[in-house]
């Protein structure tokens, strides 16, 4: 069973300089009870993808083609009120800055009560659940923490409270957008382990967006590699990290200083820049920076299945 199936999704923004192809033929799945990581650098379309799923594209953006299937429902055809009902109940989100999710003038407990407005529980039951949830995310002394305000917590605790609130309604899908990026390393690993635990207990799926390869490797079951609005490679974390097939994935992994076991003063890089998506080049999106480019790369590459679920958008995927 898959919770979320995205098929050939295309998103375009109309800008002053012309139409910008923000996502081109994006396809991947989030299976039940799995953590899928999306990795990519700035300009790869991660945020557009999330906004498209949540029905929150900016006014100048439009979905022109493809489908987003969530629990059997086609989200691209869903009305705004229905989409709103879905958000926060069946699909919830955690962002880099926890204060985006927390209202500074309401106590944590009050906010957790508000989230449960559709649960039909009595106030006492709601509060008991809130306290349980805070305990679950390891907030010390949850009975008292419940009555406190967001600013009284440290950054790491605020993020854990945001996670508690996101998981309160036991959603089918949690979208976590760089939730650990603003945290220090010691808090980052603690938050990752917490997410992993909670996901198993609640049994939801997670779509985890990060630019941090180490975090993705540690947390995720599957990985989707994005570059300039396209999914260039996807597969299980082991497949992508151990035997990457798309030249961009290969180079990206090489660039991480953590992958360089030998101490070196000459770190690998990917020279060049992502193409202007208002004037998308004809062929492969990575061709202008690719060191394996051949003549055939001037044509759009197909998604090549290289074995057991691993797919790379590169004509050389099998040879690599």
């Amino acid at each position, binding site marked *: 069973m898959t919770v979320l199936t995205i098929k050939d999704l295309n998103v375009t923004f109309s800008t002053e300089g012309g139409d910008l192809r923000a996502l081109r033929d994006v396809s991947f799945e989030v299976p039940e009870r799995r953590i899928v990581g999306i990795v990519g*650098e*700035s300009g790869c379309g991660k945020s557009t993808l999330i906004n498209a799923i949540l029905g929150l594209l900016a006014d100048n953006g439009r979905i022109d083609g493809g489908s987003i299937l969530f629990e059997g429902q086609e989200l691209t055809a869903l009305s705004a009120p229905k989409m709103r009902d879905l958000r926060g109940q069946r699909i919830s989100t955690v962002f880099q800055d926890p204060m985006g999710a927390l209202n500074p003038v309401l106590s944590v407990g009050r906010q957790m009560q508000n989230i449960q407005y559709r649960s039909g529980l009595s106030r006492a039951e709601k509060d008991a659940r809130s306290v349980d949830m805070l305990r679950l995310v*390891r907030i010390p002394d949850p009975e008292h923490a419940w009555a406190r305000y967001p600013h009284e917590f*440290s950054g*790491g*605790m605020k993020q854990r409270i945001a996670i508690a609130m996101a998981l309160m309604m036991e959603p089918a899908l949690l979208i976590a957008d760089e939730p650990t990026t603003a945290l*220090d*390393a*010691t*808090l*980052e*690993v*603690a938050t*990752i*382990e917490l997410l992993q635990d909670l996901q198993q207990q609640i049994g939801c799926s997670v779509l985890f967006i990060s*630019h*941090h*390869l*180490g*975090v*993705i*490797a*540690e947390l995720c079951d599957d990985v989707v590699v994005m570059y300039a609005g396209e999914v260039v490679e996807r597969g299980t*974390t*082991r497949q992508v*990290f*151990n035997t990457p097939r798309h030249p961009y994935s290969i*180079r*990206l*992994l090489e*660039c*991480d*200083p*953590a*992958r*360089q076991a030998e*101490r*070196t*003063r*000459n*770190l*690998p*890089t*990917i*020279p060049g*820049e992502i193409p202007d998506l208002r004037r998308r080049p004809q062929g492969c999106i990575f061709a202008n920076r690719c060191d394996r480019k051949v003549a055939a790369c001037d044509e759009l590459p197909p998604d090549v299945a290289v074995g057991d679920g691993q797919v790379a958008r590169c004509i050389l995927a099998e040879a690599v």
Partner: protein
Amino acid sequence: MHIGRGGMSAILDVRDLRVTFRVGSITQRRDILGVAGVSFEVNPGETFALVGESGSGKTTLARAVNGLQEISSGSVTFEGNRIDTLDTRSMKPVRRRMSMMFQDPVGSLSPRMKVGDLVTEPFRIHGVADVNLREETRRLLSLVGLPADFAERYPHQLSGGQARRVGVARAVALNPAMIIADEPTAGLDVSVQGEVLNLLNDLRERMGLAMVIITHNLHVVHHVADRMAVMYLGRFVETGDTEEIFQAPAHPYTAALLSANPEPDPDKAHDRIMLPAEVPSLLARPPGCEFHTRCPWAQSKCSTEPPAIVERDERRIACHFPLDPGARPPEQKGAA
């Protein structure tokens, strides 16, 4: 190449530096120690890394060394001269020799100035008249690998990596002897951060620069720094050769930091030292060893007596019970 402590030719020598901040209202004024007595030296051509989590005082320390932050005691000696006692005017010539790069690649560039004016501003500030500014612009841009026509761009027209290159060009414009780089890879993509680090390293080799790099990214430190210091609550808990520290961290905090670094390898077995509890507030420094509240190895002595500095070869460790190589915590307390 590591001339250790007492290397006679240190370009920067910091002794027992303290920085205090005044906080609170008039009625409840309190001083907090942002940097609580730190000593280190940097040799010519050497890269020294300051590592620590947010709030550890590493940026404050860098600013204090650069004279942007008043110090409350201790000394800073640069190229043989005390510079912490200098006023703004006497500090000016020092600023030609020691330049600083700030965290935000775009935000540290004045938004209404063109790249050409930005990279040559040091010449104008220091009244260097005998140069052709246009030629200097071309020279500096090519030095950092940017096309000459970038001189006409404004900072908002640059990507993070390009803006960082402009920052580097400006920092080396007047041939300094030392650069302090505060999080030089912050805000950069992985594929670009290598470019910047390689560039800095290349310039270091070509110009014989000494460098102080402040970062929280341990993987970066491993590749670029000769020596490193780990900061916790405004103090150095461990100082020494980078390679050696990575091989065998002797301070429990260093060990925890190193083990907390997520690695991009799905098959890696994680043998983590989890730190319970959160970082204490600077307003309520724990007694004894300030790390004892989170230390898995803490013993009763640790909560009462501040540790003396233990020296092991080139290593300095602020711990009562420095770790032996490969030590594991006695028993994992309830993980954080």
